[in-house]
């Protein structure tokens, strides 16, 4: 999965958010390393919507402006959990080897 898509799912894992809030959350999660531009952000959101990993939870009007609030779907949550497990396994192996452990037999 692309890094941006993974970060968008992460930003939505604990709370439903609108587009701008998602972009700010991604910046916060990555300490400013990833600051998605609008086109890239909505391109990735559209793709996640089409893949059924996120859904529009509701629409609200703030200051006369309509905006969609996005939320993780069950599929999106499952996918994020799988990715988290994969990353955690890799991180664990990195730490083990850095601590001087030997490579497991293949």
């Amino acid at each position: 999965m692309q890094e941006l898509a993974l970060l968008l799912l992460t930003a939505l894992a604990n709370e439903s958010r609108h587009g701008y809030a998602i972009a700010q959350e991604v910046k916060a999660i990555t300490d400013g390393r990833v600051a998605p531009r609008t086109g890239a952000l909505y391109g990735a959101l559209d793709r996640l919507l089409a893949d059924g990993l996120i859904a529009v939870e509701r629409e609200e009007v703030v200051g006369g402006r309509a905006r969609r609030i996005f939320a993780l779907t069950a599929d999106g949550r499952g996918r994020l959990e799988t990715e988290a497990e994969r990353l955690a396994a890799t991180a664990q192996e990195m730490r083990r080897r850095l601590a001087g452990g030997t490579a497991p037999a293949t």
Partner: protein
Amino acid sequence: MRLYPARYQAAAEILDVHREMTMDLSRLARLRADADLVAHAMRVRLGLDSASAGGRFFELAAPFALAVAAACGGIELMRWYAGVAISPGSTWSQLATTDLRQGLHVVFLLLMCGGGIVALLEYWRFGSRLSVVGLLGFAAFWFVAPGYYEELPLEVIAAVLTALVILACPPQRRAHRKPATVAGAMAAIAWFPSALVLTRGFVVSTDYGAWPLLTLILTGVVCYARPSGLRTLAALAVASPLFLAPALISL
């Protein structure tokens, strides 16, 4: 907002978010953000964004287009190199007397070949940009020196079509590892015997562009065996005009 098609209902929301996101940016950063938004709008309008069927199709086709560009660039480079190395004069004197036109031609071939390899190995965005510059340069060079091409400029048209296939791939959609590996293997298999023939080290003829075509067919068989076989096969066909052009010219 007018750039977005009427069917795309999120245009107003995107514009609001864009205003908020670019409020504190410098002039240059805002220009880049605007360009990104325009590119997204154009992709949505053309049905080439990463969520649409068109975008997903070209996502499949782009690795093959890069591989074809790399193989064709590589074969042409070997043809040039063989001319230099096999000719009676010393290689250095041949290189020293290379004129500007020939030098430019070689640069475009290097970009096609090197860009394709770089993109498929690791740096997708950088490599694909190099490859597109090489392909379009190769095509534009026809206006400068038509003598370098066959009478019917099928290769020129094929190079432009190949560049369009690469450009149509949605940004940030780096090729998945498996298609990139298959495409890379196809490029290597297409290039290697041609290189050996040109350097007089191979006994089988590759006239009439037959060998790259055989490679294409072989890759097609491999792709067809995959779960999304027909779609991949169609993507391969769209990506292969540079392989087909020499065969068509030879007919």
